[in-house]
């Protein structure tokens, strides 16, 4: 996986992008899984962007011109997916929920990326007592049940429920604390490996400052696994957000739509046979996580020559893909 990129002719930027390049080297089943994942994730993103246009009503809307919405109404013409016990339109809340999910993913992954990468680079490059302390702390947090940690953090930040941005940030920050150790570990391990590489030594000999070595030589090489971690963590972020919402630590229904919260409210409906309040937000979670996971898993498998689907000889002409032929070895 490492050296061929030095000799192979450079391909245009588009085909070197993470998902695109993986799509090109995938075959058969794996390509199918990756494509399904890309489509689902794309739908999720589009829904979140166009939620205001797609949703028939607002997420906290309880009435329209013809009067207030009925409660617990079965799916029908006016409310395609029915209404909840509080009188919200289920379809609207499901669509708006994607916006909340995307916001939390972006905020949490951006924060954990920044913190995790920065700490990992510093810790791996300089070593010493800072490194030792950070490793022990990261290991301790890593071994702890993520949901419990997220609960504690969200108590600290918002004491439970709060406004849209307050809720978003408390969820996002809880998720960040859980993820930072993971990014930290990966980046630190890579940094330690790269530190011993000849190109870092020669940069040192040339008199480059530590900042320049870290920022220019190590950073670019150490962050290669990040697309994979991003997709896997994005799906985990959604599950954590939904879990927090389900336990009542989410965002109040008047400030935003959140799938986990809706499922919590739907739980009481199930015993009377009301299925539409819970099933649709649940399906939204599953499809979103499924899409992101399929993308992540496929990238992971394609990066691992042991697992990657083997291209049959002659099936593709594979002009400049030395990695594919390398993987073809049994």
């Amino acid at each position: 996986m490492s050296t061929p990129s030095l000799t192979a002719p450079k391909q245009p930027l588009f085909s070197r992008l993470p998902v695109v390049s993986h799509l090109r080297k995938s075959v058969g089943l794996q390509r199918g899984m990756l494509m399904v994942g890309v489509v689902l994730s794309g739908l999720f993103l589009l829904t979140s962007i166009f939620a205001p246009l797609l949703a028939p009503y607002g997420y906290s809307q309880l009435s329209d011109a013809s009067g207030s919405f009925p409660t617990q109404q079965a799916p029908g013409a006016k409310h395609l997916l029915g209404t909840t016990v509080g009188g919200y339109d289920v379809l609207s809340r499901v669509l708006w929920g994607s916006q909340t999910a995307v916001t939390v993913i972006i905020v949490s992954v951006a924060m954990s990326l920044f913190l995790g990468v920065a700490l990992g680079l510093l810790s791996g490059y300089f070593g010493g007592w800072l490194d030792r302390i950070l490793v022990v702390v990261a290991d301790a947090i890593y071994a702890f049940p993520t949901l419990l940690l997220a609960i504690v953090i969200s108590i600290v930040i918002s004491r439970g429920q709060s406004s849209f941005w307050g809720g978003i940030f408390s969820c996002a920050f809880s998720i960040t604390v859980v993820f930072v150790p993971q990014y930290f570990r990966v980046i630190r391990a890579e940094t330690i490996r790269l530190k011993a590489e000849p190109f870092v030594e020669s940069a040192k000999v040339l008199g480059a400052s530590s900042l320049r070595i870290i920022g220019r030589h190590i950073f670019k090489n150490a962050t290669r696994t990040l697309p994979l971690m991003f997709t896997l963590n994005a799906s985990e972020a959604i599950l954590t957000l939904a879990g927090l919402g389900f336990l009542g630590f989410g965002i109040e229904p008047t400030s935003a739509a959140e799938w986990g919260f809706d499922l919590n409210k739907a739980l009481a409906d199930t015993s009377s046979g009301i299925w539409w309040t819970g099933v649709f937000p649940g399906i939204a979670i599953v499809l979103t996580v499924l899409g992101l996971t399929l993308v992540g898993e496929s990238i992971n498998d394609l990066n691992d020559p042991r697992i990657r689907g083997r291209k049959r000889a002659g099936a593709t002409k594979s002009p400049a893909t030395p990695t594919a032929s390398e993987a073809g070895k049994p």
Partner: protein
Amino acid sequence: MTTVIEVPEAEPGIVAPRSKSKAGGGLGKYIVIRFFLIIPTVFILVTLVFFLMRVIGDPITAAQGGRLPPDVLAQRIHDAGYDRPVLIQYFEYLGQLITGNFGTTITDRRPVVEVLTTFGAATLELSINALIVALAVGIPFGLIAAQHRDKSSDAVLRFFAILCYATPVFFSGLLLKLTFSVWLGWFPVAGRASTRTELTMSSLGAPSGIYWLDALRSGNFAALGDVTSHAVLPAVALGLLTAGVFLRLVRTNVIGTLGKDYIEAGRSRGVSEFRLVTKHAYKPALIPIITVMGLQIALMLGGAILTETTFEWKGLGYQLVQYLNARDFVAVQGIVVLLAIIVAVTNFIVDIIAALIDPRVRY
């Protein structure tokens, strides 16, 4: 966990004489070192949780703030010692922990240890049931997927594994409840047992708290049936979450070992493909599963909180959520710290088991 896995990369030339001189002492030394690694882990988590919980103020104001007149509140805070400097409280708290005192809940004034002994058994029972489901589903399906690699059955099973992971346990629980309790009426909707069985259970002498064990011991088969029917849906909901992880792990590892030379040698000698998978490739693939099981315990505890809330399964997780809603942060802190210790100790045990099975782990 990784500290253990990374170790075996030592030069054989250096290791060989050393292991000869300390024959038999390797495992004991490993256990001792691994045991002392628990302490910093627990210490850091305790410190983290303590200071985080103090950032938001004292627990008594949080729990009873609006309901008590200010002077009574101040008196309570003073009596409990929450008006002293935080550092003094911290060291006192550490001292209490060492003597096994995890504090007393504010809302119902019970020692946290008692809460654990009362509700811990239910959580343990749920976790064991779920683990059985996870292993029973994950390992055979993982083997099938590995054997039929890249065929349609493999595709279906892999998709199933990802679906297991992608479905939050409270949603799968909700679906199971809707289908099997409400529509089909096969299983009860919620709880650990029907009211009558609960009464029989509580009248037993020295109950273990694990209902099926108690029912079996007292020879009460009606109760056993009742308890089992209550246990099925929660166990499936939580078990499927982990089953997906096991399935993928078994598949990946068996495929990895199937590429090894000794498998090729076996194949050339005419050993059947089925036997190769079940007999030769399966065992080495199990070692990573045991290691991952340790990490799964942490995941399962998180899942157990959600499962217990979904099915009103009165265990530690259910109780934790009750305390959270009551804003009883002493109870929350106590339970969280206890769970941290449980996770650390189980990880320790799992590492020891891994070392017993695979000598390479214990350098």
